[in-house]
């Protein structure tokens, strides 16, 4: 009897790429839920639009590049990129903002570099960085989570906001007072602005502002971060990500911020604030851990994450203009990955008793 032959393995584990990616999406759900609680439909519109744009652009690029469309669309990698970007930018972001961001993420950062697996930079962060640099105003318009002001905005109105700049009373240019009342700078922003005006942290966070700052790192935001932390731990438990990157990142960030905080608590924020403010948790568990653009060796991951933490702190405290530094830190370290990987190769079996 004749048989076909090939050199492929005759048995494999049934973990598939798509199920790994799906796990990442599941792990984002708690964070998303909390954000929806605070920001309402705006988060949903962000996610849906980003997903639709990402899948469409991915499909177009696959067709152009002559790649199997279905196999790659169902690997969920484009969806992850879309979600990470959608969750990083303000709720109720206008559709074009999302489109531009996703375009840079999927088309430029991913496909022009060779598609899945070949992109040296984290696509979502490329999209985010481009938006932050090009549209700084739109990128800081976070609605206030305190009064749940936007959580009460209905779906119809939300869509209007996103697609047509809002109805008469919700339009920024037509009703700037209301708009101003509802939007607010994020805690990181507030701190930074306050510090540049020579206020002490106590001054900045006192009085009226106390509401903004909640217990540790900003009302609402601390819960969002906590939810991401939960999702992140679940990913580690599922062995989708290893502990190296998130834990190192958090530990190093805590250490650096502790040193400065102990030195002068009026100028430097507490480590807890740094852990739970801004994009720390999302960055540590979901962004820096993107395997494609991160370092791949165990030691390399530690170096990679430690440097990111260092840069995050640097940008948050001394970087001019940008309140948070997760995106830039990750992108900077993405560049160093090939070097880190090469110099952190593990010792081969038997190499240490030569």
């Amino acid at each position, binding site marked *: *009897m004749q048989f076909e*032959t090939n050199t*492929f*393995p005759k*048995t494999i584990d049934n973990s598939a790429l798509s199920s790994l990616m799906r796990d990442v999406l599941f792990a984002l759900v708690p964070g998303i839920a909390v954000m929806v609680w605070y920001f309402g439909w705006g988060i949903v519109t962000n996610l849906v639009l980003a997903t639709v744009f990402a899948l469409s652009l991915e499909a177009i690029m696959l067709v152009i590049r002559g790649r199997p469309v279905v196999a790659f669309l169902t690997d969920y990698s484009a969806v992850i990129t879309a979600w990470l970007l959608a969750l990083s930018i303000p709720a109720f972001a206008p559709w074009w903002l999302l489109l531009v961001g996703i375009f840079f993420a999927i088309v430029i950062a991913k496909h022009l570099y060779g598609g899945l*697996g070949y992109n040296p930079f984290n696509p979502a962060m490329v999209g985010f960085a481009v938006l932050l640099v090009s549209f700084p105003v739109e990128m800081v318009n976070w609605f206030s989570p305190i009064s749940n002001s936007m959580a009460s905005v209905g779906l119809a109105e939300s869509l209007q906001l996103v697609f047509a700049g809002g109805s008469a009373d919700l339009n920024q240019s037509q009703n700037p007072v209301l708009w101003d009342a509802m939007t607010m700078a994020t805690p990181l922003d507030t701190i930074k602005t306050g510090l540049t005006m020579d206020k002490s942290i106590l001054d900045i966070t006192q009085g009226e502002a106390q509401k903004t700052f909640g217990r540790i790192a900003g009302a609402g935001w601390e819960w969002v971060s906590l939810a991401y932390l939960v999702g992140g731990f679940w990913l580690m438990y599922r062995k989708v990500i290893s502990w190296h990157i998130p834990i190192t990142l958090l530990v190093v960030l805590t250490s650096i911020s502790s040193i400065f905080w102990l030195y002068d608590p009026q100028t430097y924020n507490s480590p807890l604030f740094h852990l739970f403010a801004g994009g720390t948790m999302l960055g540590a568990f979901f962004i820096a851990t993107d395997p494609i653009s991160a370092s791949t060796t165990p030691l390399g991951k530690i170096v990679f994450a430690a440097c990111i933490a260092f840069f995050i702190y640097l940008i948050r405290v001394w970087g001019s203009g940008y309140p948070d530094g997760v995106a830039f830190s990750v992108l900077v370290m993405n560049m160093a990955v090939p070097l880190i990987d090469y110099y952190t190769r593990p010792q081969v*079996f038997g*190499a240490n008793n030569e």
Partner: protein
Amino acid sequence: MPDIPIYSIKGGVHPEFHKKESTALPIATSSLPERLVVPMRQHVGVAGLLMVKEGDYVYKGQPLTEQPKGLGSRVHAPTSGTVGAIDRFPVPHVSGYTCPSIIIEADGKDDWGEQHLTPIEDYQTTDNELLLQRINEAGIVGLGGAVFPSAVKISSSSRSEYHCNTLIINGAECEPYITCDDMLMREKADEIVAGMQIIIKMLKPEKCLIGIEDNKPEAIESMKKAVAAIQETARNGNFHNETNDTTVIKVIAVPTIYPSGDAKQLTKLLTGVEIPKQKRSYDMGSLCHNIATIHSVFTAVIKGEPLISRIVTVTGAGIQQPQNFHTLIGTSFKHLIDQAGGYTDKVERLIMGGPMMGYSMKTDEVPVVKATNCILALPKEDLPYSPDMAMPCIRCGKCMDVCPVDLLPQQLYWHAKAKEFDKIKGYNLDDCIECGCCSYVCPSKIPLVSYYRFAKSEIREENKKKKQIEVARQRFEFREFRKAREKEERDAKRAQHKAALQKKKAAAKKAGAGTDKGADDKQDAIKAALARAKKKKAEQKTAPRNTENLTPAQQAQVDEIDARQSQNATQNTDNKNSDPKEAS
């Protein structure tokens, strides 16, 4: 007896083991096929010279090839009959590879004639050299898959500067589906232990550790019993030897994890010693032999039978009635599969070996060889792989987590795919044991090992070519040099001749003139001496090597040595790569 701790290995995977299918029935003895195909080279090293010719009648156990001088082994007639064609026939190997083979048309008598080797019952008092010679002439090679000549392994160990203090008997059998060692341990434990005693006698190790994966409780039980029995005999003093009772023998259940059965990995599990990269295990004072190999040592020494049969597992969902068969070497796969009830309708692929490291076969018309531990027939459902399923590597690092030798499979893959072979060496491709753990876990379903095999063979080719070019260059230079020197010699001779002639003429002239002064002669002599010195100097300048005054015979010798060296070098790399599993 001191307790022996179990160490851990890095990485590894837990595939579905599928051992139950083929252990339901005891080992059966395969029926005698009409025709057997015995490949001349079934082992690491070279094949021996042919000892029979077409039409010869051979008895069972009669050697068919001589024991080769260098590394290699010999083969024997598995049954009595007539030698048919001697030609290249397909052997179980990837891509329908053929090998010079001897066909035996069986006469059905299965007659040993006078071909039994003298049984050495009293091996305890037999000289080690004799035992070694027996293992050698019986054609025993590692039956765990590496097929490395066992005698070479043992003698290297006894000659090594490090005394072999740990003898490891490999009964881990970590590959899914394969159960031949398991069944052998269940059914022939005393014979295995007797074979082990022979090796212990030869090497006098301090410890002898039998490592068996803990998913084979029956085998562990039966081996423990057999070991206890010999220890009992030794205690009762019926066992006359000075060494064996000082050797601690222990059966150890090792955790079930693939690839615990790799020699270096098992050594690590049992002794905690990581055998260094470029070394063999005997350099570290340990030696690892597979269960089936040990059993064949028993058969060769105690029964005087060369290695002409082995246990083969025939299994997989593509086989009607999976079972183990005691099979003569040279029996075709088809013959065995028929005895296992034939194929099921769903059969899709035929594999020699296990699903992790085995090779796809094109046809079942290939003979069982010494390396054939398992014939696996799988239906489509059990073959989750298809080439177009592969997605890009997302550098998730899962492959790295399971790699038992701590390589970076993702980086190896990256460079292998890009054909950056010089870069790949920096990532230690040489150390890859092709265990397949990385391919097994890869979520992108990339056939990683295929890429490594490809890269390895490319690198081997490249090295071969480089070496050939180097040899050719050296030869060319040498030839040019020889030509130049010959020309010089000729010129010199001619000059001498001329001088002689002139001298003669001059002498004649002088004679004619009638006046003779010795001064002229003297000056000539001085001139000639100067010229000689000059010439010598020049020669030294062009050829500082001391090969300048070779006779043609010597030159031929040099050429031959060069050629041999280059051949050896390529052969060595071949060997190194053909025994990934048990090469220690």
